């Protein structure tokens, strides 16, 4: 268990490098959908929010969790839909 933070930090380091590699290849044309799409991914906090909201933890935890679920769902649903709406408008000549 003492190793857990180190192991998590290891994952963090790898994921950051992967992120840099992936994103630096995206052309400027798509930067807005990239940003809103990435933003939707940051709504992954919904997983933590669900666990808090659904737990039988004491005190305010389930309420905080439920509010967090609302915010995160707005982020996820809104983010993906608006990205899809934007990308749907990008057409090649003749399409």
């Amino acid at each position, binding site marked *: 268990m003492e190793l857990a933070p180190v192991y*998590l930090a290891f*994952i*963090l380091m790898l994921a*950051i490098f*992967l*992120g*840099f590699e*992936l*994103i630096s*290849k*995206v*052309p*400027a*044309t*798509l*930067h*807005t*959908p990239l*940003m*809103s*799409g*990435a*933003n939707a*991914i*940051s*709504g*992954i*906090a*919904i997983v*933590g*929010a669900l*666990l*808090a*909201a*659904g737990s*039988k933890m004491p005190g*305010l*935890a389930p309420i*905080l*969790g*439920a*509010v*967090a679920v609302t*915010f*995160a*769902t*707005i*982020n996820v649903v*809104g*983010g*993906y839909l*608006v990205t*899809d*709406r934007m*990308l*749907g*408008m990008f057409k*090649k*000549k003749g*399409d």
Partner: protein
Amino acid sequence: MMDSVAVNLAYIVAAALFVFGLKMLGSPATARRGNALSAAGMLIAVVVTLLSKGILEWHWIAVAMLVGAVIGALAARLVAMTSMPEMVALFNGTGGAASLLVGWAALYGDGSTFTAITVTLSVLIGGVTLSGSILAWGKLSEAFGSRAVVFGAQRFVNGLILVGLLAAGVLFVMQPAPDSPVFFVILGLALLLGVMAVLPIGGADMPVVISLLNSYSGLAACAAGFAINNNILIVSGSLVGAAGIILTNIMCKAMNRSLANVLFSGFGAVATASKVEGEVKPINAEDAYLILEAASSVTFVPGYGMAVAQAQHAVHELGELLEGNGCEVTFAIHPVAGRMPGHMNVLLAEASVPYDQLVEMEDINRRMETVDVAVVIGANDVVNPAARQDEGSPIYGMPIINVDHARTVFVLKRSMASGFAGVDNPLFFGDNTRMLFGDAKASIMGMVAQFKD
């Protein structure tokens, strides 16, 4: 019920889908499928979490998800493409808020030092993201006024907040408790810091803020992941964090400024540029049409002014007519045109401009000498040759689209006021420049009408 190994395996699948999704966002042809893939990853993560042993209570979750989904879907459906920066700012804010609350709730779990530290971090980053995003939204939608606010004691106040945060953080980590008053001090200071961070940034620097807040929203999720020991939050959060940092960096480079300069200086305070004087040569739609009709290569350079005038559809129509006339048409887009990275591309895509006509600054500059007519619509600073020539200019050194190297330049402008950065533009007095005064949309429509006659 799924056991935790199965749940974590499903999280790996979700993470892989996020990675693939982001990779496919690298080309307009695959981007839409990439986004759908990423959404599928999110759905998997949510469903397996709901099926895991951690979920004992359903009713609050159902209500919360329903409310969130309805708000999110409506917002995504109704927002105008010109308001996309505000929308993204708000979505960043909701992500930050969610991470903040997840961290806070984690305090009711275990009271270890590691949890206390990571909860402090997620409340700090989440809080800065939340209040910063709300202020950024206010500035972008002009609800609070968009100018940079700089006051003398700003650095001193920011320093005090940071010292306060550090002290409160140490105190809290030594004695973590969910109802500790120190926790609320941290929360309050974090929200204050977000406001103070965005306050001195305004106007043309907003794309940087949006990118940075995007990055923070990812980092907040990452910190929350540490607080609750959850891999998928850490992986996805850091992907987003990296994306935001890269975009921030691109924006800064495109303005030839360091991030520190954007964050702390408040643009416009140093404007001591030499006054430009000269005679402008106005032109009317009729003469502009005659020149365009004879051109074999035309490039449009749109700025935020085009969006304000809602001229993008008219511009597209003119582009089509020119193409029908055997002319090569391109749209040259500066990286910081608009109010967020890539904003102008979305507005043109909305007006049915095909993406193969959208070209980046470096590409068009390389062949600007061969362009017959460059049509500048509502752009100013990004085509200002003072950035190359005048060392006293506040935008000196910023890469620009060299429209002055084209054979002829049309500048569509309402009147002779200076641009967003408040800088005079020698382009307007160039020998090959013709000014087409008036509302951009009306001017374009005028040329379209000439073509149709």
